[in-house]
Structures are given as C-alpha cells and as structure tokens.
C-alpha cells in the first residue's frame, strides 16, 4: 500500500459524489487520473484491503430488521457451525470472539418475521441456542479509519 492508496482510503469513506463521472471528480481531488483511481480501487478490493465500495444502507430505515446474535459453539463443532450459519444470506457479518459466546453475527432481513424465522432456522440447523441482541437505542455509529 503506497501513499496514493492511503489517501484513497482516507478520503473515500464517504461523500462519493452523485455525478455522471464521480471517479473523475475524486481523482482530481486526489491529484491522480480517473483510470488510476479505478485501478487502485479494483486492486484493493481484490486484495481484501477494502471489503466494499458503494452505498452503505441503513437496514432499519429501509424497513428491514437487523439484530446482533451470539452463540456458544463447542470448539470441535466450530467450523461446521460457521458453514451452517454463513450459508444463510441473512447473515451479514460474522466474527469469532474470545468468550464463551464465541460466535457473533449480524442478521439483516427485510421483515421482523423473517428475522425470527432465521433465528429458528439457525437453532434447528445447529441444535444450539442463539441469543439475540436487537438494538434498543443507537447512540453513535460512525467510523473513519485513518491510515
């Protein structure tokens, strides 16, 4: 990762312009070319430095349902359960964490009913309990990582 990659990451975490040639506009700001910017983005996405590029939707405001869920998965079944849980398209993120509740994932569904059904599906498929932690109040969401 060189200085241009860093500047791309630092300046492009929001405010991507809604104009006909948005990369051109951002490229000018970064003092590079439109093609170079697109190439850099493609490389960083392929390489996994970036996980996404595009609009980030707020599930609840879209009328959807969202919940953080956790499971206590026995170590010997961990890989198997990862596969069962990740296979569901409703599972957005999934992290392993060092706690008795060692698997934490976010379910994003279009309706609350679908959310409850997905919880039931996971309980049935894995024969394990799922704790759900729906958001009751949001105090702050924002992250601007600088490199």
């Amino acid at each position, binding site marked *: 990762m060189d200085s241009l990659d860093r500047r791309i990451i630092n300046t492009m975490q929001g405010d991507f312009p809604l104009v006909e040639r948005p990369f051109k506009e951002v490229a000018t700001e970064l003092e590079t070319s439109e093609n170079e910017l697109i190439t850099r983005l493609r490389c960083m996405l392929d390489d996994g430095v970036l996980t996404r590029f595009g609009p980030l939707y707020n599930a609840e405001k879209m009328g959807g349902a969202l919940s953080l869920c956790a499971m206590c998965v026995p170590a010997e079944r961990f890989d198997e359960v990862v596969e069962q849980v990740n296979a569901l398209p409703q599972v957005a993120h999934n992290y*392993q964490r060092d706690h008795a509740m060692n698997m934490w994932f976010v379910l994003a569904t279009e309706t609350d009913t679908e959310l409850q059904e997905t919880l039931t599906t996971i309980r049935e498929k894995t024969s394990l309990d799922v704790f759900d*932690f729906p958001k009751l109040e949001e105090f702050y969401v924002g992250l601007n990582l600088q490199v």
Partner: protein
Amino acid sequence: MIDRSHKDELDRRIVLATQNGLPLDTQPYHWIAKELDITSEIVMQRMQVMLDDGRIRRIGVVPNHYRLGYTANGMSVWDIADDEIKAIGKKVGELDIVSHCYQRPRHLPDWPYNMFAMVHGSSRQEVIDKVAGIANMLEDKVRSYDILFSTRILKKTGLRLSGD
C-alpha cells in the same frame, strides 16, 4: 409526477442493483441505470433522496480494518443502570475511540451487559487501556464490564435484500 409506490419500487430496485457495490466503471450510475432501464439522472436523484433521509448512511469504501493495522477490535460490553443508560451511552458514543455504541437487551443470567461499544486499536493492550479509560470516566455508573476481542472475520457482506 412519480407517485409514492412507484418511488418505493424504484428505490428498491436501485438498492438491489447496488447492494453488492457500485461498478468500477467511469460512469457507475449510468451503468446501474442501464441495468434498470431508467436514466442515470433518476438513479442519482433517488440515491440523493436516500442519503438525505438516512436510508443510505454514506457512499464510499469500507476498509478491512485488520488489513489497515487495526488488528485489535474489541467489543466492550457494559452493565449500566437502565435509568442512566441514555446519558451514559451518549457520553461514550461521543468518544473518538468508539465507533458504534448501542443499548441492547440483557440475557440474564448469562449476559448482564446492556451497552455495547466497539473500540479499535493497533493492539489488544491499546484497546484494553482505552476501555479502562472509559471505565474510569464512568466511575460508579458501571456495575461490570468486559471486552470481547474478535479473533477472526468469518463473514462480511453488506445489507442484502432478496431479489424476489
């Protein structure tokens, strides 16, 4: 005039077409528009409306924080009195070192914590120190707390709508 239900349907199609990301093309909105058989002006206009009303949080890149050196990602969890959590949550959410801060339900007896705050750093020790700093700041408002470190990303995708 475009009526309300037509707009909802239009927005839904735009979300479906962009939820995996924007195309890396010199004219990304034009490309989406072509796919949806509408004009790029309408795509940009509807996305602006969704940005303004919060349905789109932002448009840009999402870095993999592990790859950027933020290798320690601690989910700090706190047991705060219910009648104080609004004030405390706001205070903690305003800290620079905290990215997300939410009130979530307890699951007693397994889980006494009702406030979740994500703290990022370049090492576990840095995150532990930052979280200890928060605990000091909150003094006796904290009944107990813990930090759960992530050890592996198992899956990371954006919001998905099924394309029925």
